[in-house]
């Protein structure tokens, strides 16, 4: 059931979080209680159509962007800014599989905070990461094949990341569609792996820039 608010301008009824008043058409503030999925009008879940996300993002920008409110009053300008800040944050979060996964773990109540450990606690995974690191260290940056080697390593890592994305997507699917709570634990595990791999990719990319 949608909550009812009152339009700040004409005081007519407004469904909380809707963009504009149906009576006087004036911009309304965003509803902080809506999560990113609800805000974008998407079903919560890991699988989402990025094309749809892009389209909604653009459409909302065309409704709310501060450029369209330059000549309006101070309150309207502020609400426009709040909407677009919200929109940009949601877009950034949902677009990337890693941030989307972390966000889903939060909204499902599985865990409040993303762990910040520099090293993984699972010894087997720690070993795996160390092997990747060693391979990276072994690339002779002064050698003439360095650029190619880095690219090959990057391609392999990307494949690994893709597999993690599939695995964590399955975990979320088990919860959102199958209703199995243990799906979230699986998703969390693969989200964590993806986070370490992403960090590794950042490091690799910093080295690759030497050859740009």
């Amino acid at each position, binding site marked *: 059931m*949608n909550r*009812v608010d*009152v*339009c700040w*301008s*004409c*005081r*007519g*009824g*407004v*469904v909380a979080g*809707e*963009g*504009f*008043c*149906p*009576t*006087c*058409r*004036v*911009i309304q503030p965003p509803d902080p209680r809506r999560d990113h999925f609800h805000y974008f009008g998407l079903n919560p879940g890991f699988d989402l159509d990025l094309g749809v996300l892009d389209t909604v993002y*653009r459409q909302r*920008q*065309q*409704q709310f*962007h*501060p*450029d*369209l*409110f*330059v*000549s*309006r*009053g*101070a309150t*309207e300008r502020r609400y426009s*800014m709040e909407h*677009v*800040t919200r929109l*940009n*944050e949601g*877009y*950034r979060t949902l677009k990337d599989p890693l941030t989307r996964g972390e966000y889903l773990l939060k909204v499902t109540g599985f865990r409040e905070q993303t762990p910040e450990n520099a090293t993984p606690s699972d010894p087997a995974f720690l070993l795996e990461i160390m092997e990747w690191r060693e391979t990276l260290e072994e690339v002779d940056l002064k050698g003439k094949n360095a650029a190619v080697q880095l690219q090959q390593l990057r391609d392999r890592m990307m494949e690994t990341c893709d597999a993690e994305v599939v695995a964590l997507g399955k975990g979320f699917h088990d919860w959102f569609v199958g209703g199995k709570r243990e799906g979230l634990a699986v998703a969390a595990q693969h989200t964590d792996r993806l986070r370490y791999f992403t960090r590794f990719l950042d490091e690799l*990319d910093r080295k690759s*820039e030497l050859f*740009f």
Partner: protein
Amino acid sequence: MSVLLDIAEPGQSLRPHEVRPEDRKRVVGIDLGTTFSLVAAVDVQGKPACIPDDEGRVALPSVVCYPQDGRILVGDKAIAASEQYPADTIVSVKRTMGRSLDDVVASEHRTGFGLEAGEGGMVRIVTSHHRVSPVEVSAHILKVLASRAEEALGGSLDGVVITVPAYFDDAQRQATKDAGRLAGLEVLRLVNEPTAAALAYGLDQGREGLYAIYDLGGGTFDISILRLTQGVFQVLSTGGDSALGGDDFDHLLCEYILKEMDEADPSPAVLQICKAAARQAKEMLSRVDVCEVRVALPHGEPFGIRVTRELFEEMIDDLVRATGTPCRRAMKDAGIRGHDLQGVVLVGGSTRVPMVRQYVKELFGREPLSDLDPDQVVALGAALQAQQLSGTARGDMLLLDVTPLSLGIETMGELVEKIIARNAPIPTARSQDFTTFKDGQTAMAIHVLQGERELVSDCRSLARFELRGIPPMTAGAARIRVTFQVDADGLLTVSAQEQTTGVQQSVAVKPSYGLGDAEIERMLREAMVHGEADWRQRLLHEAKVEAERVLSAAGAALREDADLLDDNELKRVKGLMLALWEASQKEDHEGINRARETLDRETVFFAERRMDRSVRKVMTGRKVDEFQ
């Protein structure tokens, strides 16, 4: 009483973006360039065009000369006077905007004028007889362009859009905005140069898809990757070098000529002449394979030397290739490869150099586009954006830009913790929590930095401030939330709040390299162009906008729910609306606001009845959410 009928007539209320012809405003776009600057406006047909001076020239050289007699010469007049006053002639001032003396000395070429450290370490320019800040010099250029535009458009300007290199950091942007204020201009927005260029291109051609904008100007290099979809210009990534441009080509040629002339320590006059000769030679070498450089010195033998294109290309090879790294990084950040692009657009005078074109072709694997004049396209795009911001544009175009560099704060071990990543769409706001590391710690220093590197010393320091009054707690117990907010101009505001007590500090990041508040205030007072009158005008405008909104809201409410009022009440509400409408036709903002407040106050009962009705409607299951 026709007013009231209008107000109550369905479909007659003002929609948010509706424009009336009398609202048309005098707004322009200004490309404040390193070597020259332009101003452009959109005509009644919606086409942007650069505004020429009396002699038909659109490009104003970004040169300012301050002879001792107190005159201020700008543009071609300054160039003409530069031989007489070489030490009082400022060129390429853009390279010093928002920079410290150390930055400028590190990257700067020899100049005829001197430099020194001013307030907060920021660079000041020293002529033979006075000192002037880069912001003031830029303001003098802006003033000349503004008065040119005012003459052409027949009245004072309502607002300007000024372009900045996409890769400009916060300090450089702030300095540019300050220059606009100092010139007495209402700066509607700072727009990134490549984005402005894309606007001119996209709208001109109705293009869609992914584009790279390669912008090599006089002093700066920018690359931006954009997606154009149905009038939305979404910047996906940007990169560049804010100290690389055609000036550097001139510099290398100039040094070569000086060496051939055996001039180890040239006087300002000789330097000026050689620089001009180098520039001419560079321009000629874009058209011919070999050219003759002649240097006519005031005292002494004329000097001549042949320069081939091959030699010139050898000199600039490293510089041209240096543009490759930002391009590759921008493509990676956007998650695309060269073949995904629909086109590569060339912007900036330096893209006329054949070697640059050839390199861009190799880099992106396609022939670049240059069907619009690369010198004018930025100003044209800025004019379109100015029109859009004045609320009088016809099309539905929208610019979605990003912040070029990561923003963060200093943490333990002189490391930078990033809070907003580069290429984040703006406006944006992000928070991160930090804690105290000593028992009983009551203050926390916040050091704001910009850049991609991990060490504080490798990033640009933007501001420092202190959050005080944290209640003494054990180490790690306090929760200090630091919030970064970047507005649509790309300018940063930082605030810090202790979460358990609500103690708060906030600073608009006046960068350490920008003008101190005291300094800008002094300059504004001196240049007192904006006075009391402008302030009143603004208050009046705000009052009218609010009045219009309230009238439209009241009209909408009456259309919907007039039946909630009896005849007397209806009459009273309409009477108050009429009073507000009449007040809003006059030029007294206080009167308008009084009438608005009266209407607000006296219609509370009506609002309450409407609220009850809305709630009942939702309760009985009628959906209110099918709109937008």
